[in-house]
């Protein structure tokens, strides 16, 4: 697409420059109704079926603030350690585009509801990186435009545009960071980890579905480079460079890639003595590139002014404290607690987190299994199956209760680890609970010594030379007989017990 763009090597850029990021995340709230009207917010409804005079901007219509959306904004602010404004107002952000029927978006400008917070972000190696939050404010979403015709289906060359206002007026919270400095070569990882951590907080609060692929969580990444200084104190005095704002970054992976790409693109420009243009760029998931959009200086003049149709909000302090007291445990705090409770090592906990298995292990433990056993199944056999099927662990057709039951069966000596794999396979094949699978498939361990002895005798008789060797003291030769017995019992014998019986039998 943009074949004339030169990219520098990432490491080369980082040798000479210090990246500075600013991340804006839009979270679409999961309230039942829109921000300023009573229209439903169901995702995927047929076009223009969830619209009314307010959200299509008919003259004379009046907005009314959704209290639940305000509550969600306050709860998010509290979770991000923000100050909740004593008084905040709405403002009109004016621009002309068909996705805004009123020619302005109702947003907040000078006095956002959430101010000055932070989010501690855990990086892959366990390092904690603090991202400072500048503000989080409430606003309404824009409508969905579909550009029809033209060569590319995008804006350039489109013949006309179709507008669906269902999304128009949906409640959004936009969370804006302060400039993120000091990340250095880890900037791409920090950006990704921040959005991932923010998404976890939003999910823990239950205020949004936060599905990046559906656009209910969207990230814009600002990035600039400044000359690298000798130390942190000197670095802090170096002014920021010109920044680009990359939009349309719709997956965690894309955030990391987009930051990396912009570091390399801007690095190449600066190394060649050229200037970075302050502009909006679009991320293209297919080609993993950004391409220029508007030039910022020209476009960013929204002529904000106070929204005369809405009254100020002065969140009642008792209400705020009530919401604070009722906040759920935050994911990072919860992970630290569980790690201690479960006695996992850093490595084990990290593996559980990366596999998306923490909640599953927690539920399995709650259903009666030991933490080590729960971890073994979710990160072992089940992770293998999930990987094979290319699905997430949580989407496997097996529940924590099933896994706990399998562990109980093993603990009672009724099945072995090996049989447990077959039991889990049966559960995932829809054959019922582990108990039902064991019964239906006849997987129970053969614990009847008489039956085992019969198989042992047969195996010894079939391999007299091995029997002699064991008798002569070569105990390890018993392995061959154990194997034969296991085969004869279709794996349903307890190998340790079989070994004991063999040794008894030959009198070794």
């Amino acid at each position: 697409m943009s074949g004339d763009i030169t990219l520098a090597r990432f490491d080369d850029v980082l040798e000479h420059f210090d990246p500075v990021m600013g991340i804006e995340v839009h979270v679409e709230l999961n309230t039942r109704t829109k921000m300023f009207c009573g229209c439903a917010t169901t995702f995927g409804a047929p076009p223009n079926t969830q619209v009314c005079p307010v959200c299509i901007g008919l003259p004379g219509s009046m907005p009314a603030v959704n209290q639940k959306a305000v509550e969600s904004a306050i709860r998010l602010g509290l979770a991000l350690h923000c100050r909740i404004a004593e008084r905040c107002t709405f403002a009109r952000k004016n621009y002309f585009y068909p996705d805004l029927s009123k020619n302005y978006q109702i947003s907040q400008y000078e006095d956002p509801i959430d101010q000055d917070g932070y989010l501690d972000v855990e990086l892959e190696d366990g390092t904690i990186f603090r991202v400072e939050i500048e503000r989080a404010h409430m606003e309404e979403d824009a409508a969905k435009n579909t550009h029809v015709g033209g060569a590319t289906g995008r804006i350039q060359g489109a013949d006309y545009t179709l507008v669906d206002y269902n999304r128009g007026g949906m409640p959004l919270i936009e969370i804006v960071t302060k400039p993120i400095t000091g990340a250095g070569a880890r900037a791409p990882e920090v950006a990704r980890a921040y959005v991932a951590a923010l998404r976890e907080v939003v999910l823990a609060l239950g205020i949004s579905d936060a599905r990046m692929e559906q656009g209910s969580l969207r990230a814009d990444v600002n990035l600039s480079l400044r000359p690298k200084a000798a130390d942190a104190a000197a670095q802090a005095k170096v002014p920021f460079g010109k920044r680009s704002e990359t939009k349309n970054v719709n997956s965690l992976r894309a955030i990391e890639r987009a930051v990396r790409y912009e570091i390399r693109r801007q690095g190449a420009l600066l190394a060649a003595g050229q200037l970075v243009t302050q502009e909006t760029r679009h991320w293209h998931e297919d080609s993993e590139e950004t391409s220029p959009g508007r030039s910022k200086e020209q476009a960013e003049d929204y002529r904000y002014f106070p929204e005369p149709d809405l009254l100020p909000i002065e969140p009642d302090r008792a209400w705020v404290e009530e919401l604070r007291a009722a906040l759920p445990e935050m994911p990072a705090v919860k992970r630290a607690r569980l790690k201690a409770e479960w006695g996992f090592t850093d490595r084990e906990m990290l593996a559980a987190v990366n596999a998306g298995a923490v909640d599953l292990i927690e539920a399995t433990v709650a259903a009666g299994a030991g933490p080590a056993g729960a971890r073994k199944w979710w990160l072992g056999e089940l992770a293998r199956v999930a990987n094979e099927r290319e699905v997430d662990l949580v989407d496997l057709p097996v529940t924590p209760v099933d896994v706990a039951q399998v562990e109980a069966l093993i603990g009672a000596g009724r099945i072995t680890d090996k049989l447990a794999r077959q039991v889990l396979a049966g559960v995932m094949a829809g054959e019922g609970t582990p108990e039902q699978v064991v019964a239906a498939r006849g997987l129970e361990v053969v614990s009847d010594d008489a039956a085992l002895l019969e198989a042992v005798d047969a195996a010894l008789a079939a391999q007299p030379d091995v029997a002699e060797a064991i008798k002569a003291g070569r105990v390890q030769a018993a392995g061959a007989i154990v194997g034969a017995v296991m085969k004869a019992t279709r794996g349903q014998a307890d190998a340790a017990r079989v070994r004991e019986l063999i040794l008894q039998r030959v009198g070794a």
Partner: protein
Amino acid sequence: MSAISRDEVARVAALARLSVPPEELDKLAEQLDSIVEAVRVVSEAAGGDVPATSHPIPLVNVFRADEVRPSLSVDQALLAAPAREADQFKVPQILGEEP
């Protein structure tokens, strides 16, 4: 000396997507200036002890419960659309970029 310059009028016109012939810029600057002048009288009347407000009634915290109310039908919604295709508003090709 007018408070509103010719350039400002051109800029605001561009932001508002209005096409203003160059020969009208000075006249509009003058007219806008007199409007701003009239409003200035109000800011003189309000002393420093009067807080700025966007609303004449001192009310706060007027909320709506998060309860779904009926929407318009698609046909009602599209009644005043300049053009329609299937159940969507159809508008001309858009110049420039999405904000």
